[in-house]
């Protein structure tokens, strides 16, 4: 288990981001199975349930994430399963509840992150999701604050950029939407100097918009 007392929960992080008008998937905190089911109904199926705990960083590794839940029965069952597997894997973890969010349509996945450089301060990182960022380190950086032009350049700088332009008949991702999101993140971290690290991973890059699906914020 990775403990980080300065970490916000996913729901807290997304609330902060949404307030800063950074597009994030609507995510609510359910404190009981009944609440989880009624929230799921309100949002519309399919939904995703995740454990909401600042003590559990790698949620899916310990059975803390259930995707594509199609109805109330599945949502209720997922709630119980998540609770029992987290209690087993991380007996000491404080669990605030279970987050409920709609299962959004798939898209090209990108990552937008912020970390602090010892010399230049907050730095924004951009990359494609999954193997491209993890194995090939295909990422670009810019120093905060970023202009839209900086954001545009850092998007075009990665080797995997053609994937965003659309391949094998896929529609291209909206670059203005990504640029805007990156600039908003830059403004957000500029205003909130007590944020040490931020990760939007993944951000779904649709042809008409960009949407952060998961978010992690660590404070100083």
């Amino acid at each position, binding site marked *: 288990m990775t403990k980080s007392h300065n970490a916000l929960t996913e729901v807290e992080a997304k609330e902060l981001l949404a307030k800063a008008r950074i597009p994030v998937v609507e995510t609510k905190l359910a404190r009981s199975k009944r609440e989880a089911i009624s929230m799921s109904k309100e949002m519309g199926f399919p939904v995703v349930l995740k454990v909401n705990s600042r003590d559990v960083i790698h949620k899916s590794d310990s059975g803390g994430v259930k995707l594509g839940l199609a109805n109330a029965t599945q949502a209720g069952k997922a709630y119980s399963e998540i609770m029992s597997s987290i209690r087993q894997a991380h007996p000491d973890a404080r669990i605030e509840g279970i987050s409920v969010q709609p299962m959004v349509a798939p898209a090209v996945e990108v990552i937008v992150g912020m970390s602090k*450089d*010892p*010399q*230049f*301060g907050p*730095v924004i990182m951009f990359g494609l999701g999954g193997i491209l960022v993890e194995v090939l380190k295909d*990422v*670009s*950086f*810019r*120093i905060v604050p*970023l202009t839209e*032009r*900086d954001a545009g*350049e*850092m998007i075009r700088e990665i080797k995997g950029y053609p994937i965003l332009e659309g391949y094998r008949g896929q529609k291209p991702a909206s670059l203005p939407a990504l640029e805007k999101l990156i600039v908003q993140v830059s403004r957000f971290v500029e205003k909130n100097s007590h944020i040490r690290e931020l990760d939007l991973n993944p951000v779904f890059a649709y042809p008409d918009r960009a949407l952060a699906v998961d978010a992690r914020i660590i404070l100083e």
Partner: protein
Amino acid sequence: MFEEKLKELEPVFYPRSIAVVGASANSVKAGSAWVWSLVSAGFPGPVYPVGSSGGRIANLDIFPSLRLIPGEVDYVIVAIPRRSVLELLDDCIAKSVKAVQFFTAGFSEMDAQQGLQLEKQMVEKARRGNIRIVGPNCIGVYCPEQRIPFIMGALGKSGCVGFASQSGGIAGKLATLGMARQIDYSKGVSFGNGIDLDASDFLQYLAADPKTKVIGAYLEGTRDGARLFNTMQAVARVKPLVVWKGGRTEAGAQAARSHTGSLASSAAIWSAALRQVGAVEVYSLEELTDTLLLFQNLGRWQGRRVAIIGGLADGGGGMSVSAGDACMDNELEVPPLSPETREELSALLGEAGSILHNPVDVSQAQFRGLETLFRAIDLVARDTAVDAVLIQEDIDIVLPIYSQQGLEEISEFFIHLRSKQNKPLLVVLPPGSSEPERLQTEQKLLKGSIPVFCSVERAARALSNLNRYSFRRGLVDPSLTQPVTMPEPG
């Protein structure tokens, strides 16, 4: 922009008098070397050697203490052990000195805690006494206009290239490489640990300095990244800024810590920062000098399309091929010449086919004489399909075919063409078995403001750097995109 810096640093670059502390009559001490260098360079104001041993050096009396110098002292060069620096600063305050340069080393770069503490005390004292510090751990100021050399003594000509370097060794080499390649400096400075005046101060000064048109920098790290970032961004808007970041690798970063006490950021973040501010990042001393030379001789430039003349006399086949690769590898284009030019070339040289596309083979001219060669090159340079002409001239081949006199006529023709044609001419003179003639040719061409390189790769890289800067500036502010203009040769 940054006009206030001109006044602030005037005593650093244009002192009226200099004292050198740590000089002695008969030793090879650094202080003594500085006295000799200043005197032989012809520094126009008084030079006051200071040292405990007394006696004379370079026909000057050595003063036992700074306080005993009769006249005013603007600037002090210090080469004494670190245990005496605070006391020395008291002397400077008593003498109303304006700025002090510390060659003295052994501060935060050697000993993080004690060194840093001493640096703090020095800065506090200097601030109270209204004194600016250059260094410590540096060779300080170089200003050919004011006849101030680095410690090694060579002065060079005064020109339009300014530089700031964290390293003294690199500052010194940059100055002497400039002398070898006719890169003429307005000012240079090595600022070492930069405890008071640092990279940002000097870059701001160079941006404001009317004598400086192009700025080079060698940096290892910074104590105030945000200030450096903002400074570089503002500076690159008004003048080309070429930056070489040392300590890009783990081994390099470790060396940088013990060299100038710099913290390490990852190379990727430095590269991102340099790109973001619109500076040109270079990766070696060679690339730095190549790029500064090209900026000096061409100014702002926009144009990626290069005509390559692979072999001036003969043997240019493989050279043409590799030159084409070198250009394409560096984001330059090698487009075919216009059909009209090709037709005229074919009539002139009695050749046809692909060798007249681009790269161009003009070796057939050797059977028709120099006039034919010159007309062929003139045709290529006139072609509106290209923005620059890159000529590879291998002296080993040119000399036996055209003789010494022909070699000189070729250089004269290049200089003539350069002044006539509104198009840059870059000449590559690869080293070989005719070094005296090659060096002679290089100096002649450089004197005519033609940039000379020793390989096509380096020429292409420098041209690409020039393009990248100009292109970027054009995007930021279209009014800065100049039509092709060439400085007057001379």
